[in-house]
């Protein structure tokens, strides 16, 4: 527990970051970054991808060394040589990609590296009891003996937090903690943060969801191009102001103007059910030029539904028709042939081959175009890739590895892969997850263009504002059941959430 800040002689006993600089080769990723975090407060660190937030956090958490600058933590100079040193000093970080051992138990994960021993053996009883106490402190009712693999993402994150608590962390850095969480789970996380805050813990909170910031943060630090461009003493600043500071220009509109849909019905889904009952009896149709949003909480069956329509997962009953013709859903290849394409939820694991080039990634879905008689020549791939790159505005070259691109550009590569076919039904699952605000607007424009060009578009998103801003109609799922389809005029935050939580 940190002492009461009023009793210390320095202004406060928290974290002072001053003049941090970091370059990789000729690229300066961090320039003269200075800010402070007081005990018992949440500082939101905002900025687009590449703005330097991760670099700052990694320096504070001990995994990166700065070129210049100094940090003071709890009144002492602080320059952690490793994440272990940072943890010893009471600084922990919860990464966006959780670092847990999936086949070990919850308790083992919490105490990994320092398992309580008794007489040369692991004291399982003590370990489970202590872990259980920490989980209770977080309001989490999970058996400490359960394997982490069997927990949902949200619960796994809680295990990471519990681990940090047992390490006596007094400053926790959260990197996009809510990217994979639904509304309820986010609320639970916020409740925990507030509780720990009251106990004197400090937080650095990185997020792309600006609407959360006012709710959870005390102060806001905005970064752009490796510099700190604004410090707000309060968190309830208009989202628009923050966005403008993040992108360095004024944002005209987040969402593009939607054109009215056409008459032809391109996608008809009838009584579709999954073998695992993750969705039941779902029926809807989408017209040419129409964007249908699918909303719901995590676990409502949205991803499962669209994956089934795209042939990626099996169905148990129901039918799908594309432009009036029934589609035999026995695999992605059949769906693609029928004109249904999917931009999957997990970009890195399902969307792109990271180690391969943009050109190769674009070719992988299009050998029938790129290689008419099965012959693939580098020149043809190059030409095909250049066309896709310029059409979608990807910042990259055909022979560049996809892993070197930002999330937004990776997403554009996946979309560009399908555009030339052209598909009749374009499904996008979480199209902007983990993508920064400036790039999001570009993705929205692309999606609106797809619809304008006459495709039926289906967008799944956990970001309610996104679903509402982008869709002609919104289908709401809750626990695998279709709760209703709202027209744009009647779809509001409240209306959707009412259905989603029903």
């Amino acid at each position, binding site marked *: 527990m940190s002492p009461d800040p009023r009793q210390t002689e320095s202004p406060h006993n928290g974290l002072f970051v001053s003049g941090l600089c970091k370059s990789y080769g000729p690229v300066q990723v961090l320039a003269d970054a200075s800010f402070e975090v007081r005990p018992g407060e949440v500082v939101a660190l905002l900025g687009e991808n590449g703005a330097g937030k991760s670099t700052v956090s990694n320096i504070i958490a001990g995994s990166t060394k700065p070129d210049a600058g100094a940090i003071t933590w709890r009144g002492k100079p602080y320059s952690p040589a490793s994440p272990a040193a940072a943890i010893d000093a009471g600084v922990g970080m919860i990464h966006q990609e959780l670092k847990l051992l999936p086949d070990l138990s919850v308790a083992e994960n919490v105490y990994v590296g320092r398992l309580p021993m008794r007489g040369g053996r692991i004291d399982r009883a003590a370990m489970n009891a202590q872990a259980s106490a920490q989980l209770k402190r977080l309001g989490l009712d999970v058996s400490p003996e359960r394997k982490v693999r069997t927990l949902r993402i949200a619960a796994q994150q809680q295990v990471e937090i519990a681990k940090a608590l047992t390490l006596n962390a007094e400053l926790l850095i959260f990197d996009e903690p809510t990217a994979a969480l639904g509304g309820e789970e986010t609320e639970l996380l916020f409740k925990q943060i507030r509780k720990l805050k009251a106990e004197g813990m400090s937080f650095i909170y990185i997020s792309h969801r600006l609407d959360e910031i006012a709710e959870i943060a005390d102060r806001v630090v905005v970064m752009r191009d490796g510099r700190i461009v604004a410090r707000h003493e309060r968190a309830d600043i208009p989202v628009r102001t923050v966005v403008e500071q993040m992108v360095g220009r004024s944002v005209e509109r987040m969402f593009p103007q939607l054109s009215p849909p056409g008459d032809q019905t391109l996608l008809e889904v009838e009584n579709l059910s999954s073998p695992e009952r993750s969705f039941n009896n779902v029926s809807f149709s989408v017209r040419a030029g129409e964007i249908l949003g699918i909303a719901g909480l995590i676990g409502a069956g949205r991803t499962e539904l669209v994956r089934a329509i*795209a042939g*990626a997962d099996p169905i148990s009953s129901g039918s799908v028709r594309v432009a009036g013709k029934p589609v035999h859903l026995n*695999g*992605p*290849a059949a769906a*693609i*042939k029928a004109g249904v394409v*999917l931009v*999957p939820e997990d970009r890195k*694991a*399902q*969307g*792109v*081959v*990271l*180690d*391969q080039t943009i050109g*190769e990634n674009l*070719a*992988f*879905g299009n*050998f029938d175009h*790129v*290689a008419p008689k*099965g*012959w*693939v*020549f*580098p020149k043809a791939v190059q030409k095909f890739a250049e066309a896709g790159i310029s059409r979608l505005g990807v910042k990259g070259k055909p022979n560049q590895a996809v892993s070197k691109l930002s999330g937004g550009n990776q997403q554009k590569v996946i979309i560009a*892969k399908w555009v030339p076919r052209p598909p009749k039904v374009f499904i996008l699952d979480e199209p902007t997850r983990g993508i920064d605000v400036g790039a999001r607007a570009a993705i929205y424009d692309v999606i609106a263009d797809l619809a304008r060009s006459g495709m039926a578009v289906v967008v799944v998103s956990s970001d309610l504002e996104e679903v509402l801003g982008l869709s002609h109609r919104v289908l709401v799922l809750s626990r695998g059941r279709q709760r209703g389809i709202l027209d744009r005029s009647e779809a509001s935050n409240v209306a959707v959430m009412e259905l989603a939580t029903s």
Partner: protein
Amino acid sequence: MSKSGRRAIAASLTGGDEVAVSNDASDLKAGAQAATGAKLSALFAGTMGPLIGLVLLCLALTLTTDTFLTVRNILNVLDQITVLGIMAIGMTLVILIGGIDLSVGSVLALAAMVMGFVAHPDYLNLGMPAGIVAALVVAGLCGLVSGLLVTVTKLPPFIATLAMMSVARGLGNMITDGSQIVGFPDWFTSLSITRHFGFLSVTVGLMIVLAIIFAIFLNYRATGRSLYAIGGSAEVARLSGIPVKSLTNWVYAICGVLAGLAGIVLAARLDSVQPSSGLGYELDTIAAVVIGGASLSGGVGSIGGTAVGVLIIGVLRNGLNLLGVSPFIQQVVIGVVIALAVATDTWRRRAQ
């Protein structure tokens, strides 16, 4: 291979279009050379490290022995690597899709025994062609079964092919109850002995032709490129509409056929077949592919790299023999080379 021959291959790889556009003779030559350079560098892309290693190795052996850099010795090396080289082509495909095949040594022995059993006068006496076909079919079936165990039964490739390794070895022993079959027609054994044009035996030629065919397949055929997608991420490949399961089955089947072919080549070289042949070859083969820059996690690798890897192992064995190094020390040296090759590759990747 001669310089002009190499260029001809390079031109055939490009479809010759780069050289055909110019009328001027010197331009033509320069264009051809540039194309050769570009194609060769493409063929060996990502294998510069092993290639440099091979060159240094040859240089060192040329300086330390009188006999290394002689036509006779080089031809010797080529003869010695044919079995390994043919198997390594199949292994490259398997490793490219993120798999592994531990059964190739056993499949080699089983195929050779099947050939002997079908063809040899003491047994079925159906003639060499029937024996060769039977051997390749059995080997292909072994590979296909491994593939199906991976794609349908969802066994990890390591386990599936470990099982096949044991089964194939056992079947090979069952055919003759463990004894060898000796003596094949002269025309068959001469395939690996007679050097046409003064340098090229049929078996070495076969290896080179197969390497070129599979290099073209991997570089320029949609199906070949798809293997890179599967190795990079099987789920991405599947969602892109690539038939991952059937390609995986094909790859294991082809790897099996090539192992069987290697068994036939070995039979020609030894004029006999025995169920204990090919013991431990799977590890040599995997080593050659890995030394050639392929990643065991899939998606990275090439026939050019594998060729270099095979040559490194072949030249190293040959050179150590010439230097009179004991075979026990040879094993140590090859182990060190495997570790060094992969370590430098990892360091280089990290430095990038």
